[in-house]
């Protein structure tokens, strides 16, 4: 089954996605990433209010046998985290683009967005 790539999102070549709404960006991992990682059993989320620079570790996603760092696709301040993942980390597998989002960032530098991939370019990387 082909991995879903949504047209209304921005992507990184490290398999994170961003959904931009005004000055905010929701971040998650792509369908391809969740299917490569298989059973996600633990998500370690950052604290709300934390400032991150593009490329910093944003959170950690663990499957039974692997530990993967998720990097901040852009710089910004963490304004929301998906607390539901503490009890149901498998949501990242089940709904990577919707209920399985990880954090919401307040965008610091909009020009960083220009460097992200669109859906077509991301498809070529997977």
């Amino acid at each position, binding site marked *: 089954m082909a991995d879903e790539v949504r047209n209304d999102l921005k992507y990184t070549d490290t398999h994170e996605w961003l959904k931009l709404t005004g000055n905010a960006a929701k971040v998650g991992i792509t369908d391809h990433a969740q299917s490569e990682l298989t059973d996600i059993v633990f998500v370690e989320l950052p604290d709300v209010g934390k400032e991150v620079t593009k490329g910093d570790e944003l959170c950690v996603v663990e*499957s039974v046998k692997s530990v993967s760092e998720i990097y901040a696709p852009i710089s910004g301040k963490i304004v929301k985290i998906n607390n539901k993942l503490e009890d149901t980390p498998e949501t990242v597998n089940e709904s990577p683009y919707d209920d399985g989002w990880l954090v919401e960032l307040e965008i610091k530098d909009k020009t960083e967005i220009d460097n992200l991939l669109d859906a077509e370019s991301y498809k070529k990387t997977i």
Partner: protein
Amino acid sequence: MLDKCFVEILNYSNCIHPQGKIMVKRSPLYDLQKKIGARFTEFAGFEMPILYTSIKDEHLAVRKLVGLFDVSHMSNVWITGEDAEKLISLVTVEDASRIEDKKSQYTAILRDDGTVIDDTIFMHLGDKYMMIPNAGMDETVTKWINKKAKENNICATAKNVSEDYVILAIQGPKSRDTLQKFTKTDLKTVGFFGCQYANIAGVNCIISHTGYTGELGFELQITPPEKAEDLFYKILDAGKEFGIKPIGLGARDTLRLEKGFILAGNEFKGGRTPLEALMSWTINWDHEFIGKDALLKQKEHGDYERLTSLECIDKGIPRHGCEIQKDGKKIGKVTSGTLSPCLNKGIAMGYAHPDFREKDSILDVIVRDKPIKAKVVKPPFVPKDWAQQH
């Protein structure tokens, strides 16, 4: 982020080719596994399936139904000669004269200083014995045994035949029902740790009532390897009605850890004795064996670290190498850790001094600089009747 580190599975060092190239071996069933969707990892110099669909699903299939593993990365060594029994008694902690024909035994091979070279099963098959050392240990164990035979004028030899065999493990409550379809041998007569020659679906092999999952299960030693492919498919087909799944090394590791079984590359790393690794129960003290004097001294002294089992209270997954602390002070390191698919909790093993390992003591495992509270428990983490309760 997809540079996933399979933290636990990859602790073995690679096989380095004399020219400096890394030499990775494959199971004779590699192509078959690729065809049916396996994802591979390197383990102890072998490229083996880590999972087919999901470690969690595969794990639960073995606990509740049945699973089929290719464990051909494990080694096969024949011990033959008129003094074969004497040689095994010298190089392992077991007195082989106690092990009747058609019985197998789990034991350890020690250095002179009492530390473990490898843990292994040996099977008594008529006038010879087959030993199953760990993956990548075939040459080390064979050379060691032959050296000791020579030094002690024992008329027996070890022969590494690892490449001549495929090893399949069929594990889970429905393993016997699955295999029984293929053989006239009444598998109920093959008792726990029993072993014998048998014909399974027209293939002559050695069958043993053994495994590494803590469930009812059997292992098949198949030679020549070409005969295994057809049998692999046949077993999957016969097990369909019970919900059989092919199982990768990922679930093999979580299944063994839930039962508190040790993994050589993890728990013996750096030189541990069987007393430290809680293998005292395997030692037969009433015979002479290599390493015995060192063990007796250690036993008398008493003050040594012992393998300790931890069940996490806080959320978080302990991994190999995580520090274990008591009141902020380092007291040990995790040798194996995972999320337990049955308990849905972090579980771990590591070495700790007796002062800190009393049952129900609370310790911290440091995961990414944060302490995760964990309780000292007595293994197994998952009891025998777990599948009936869930």
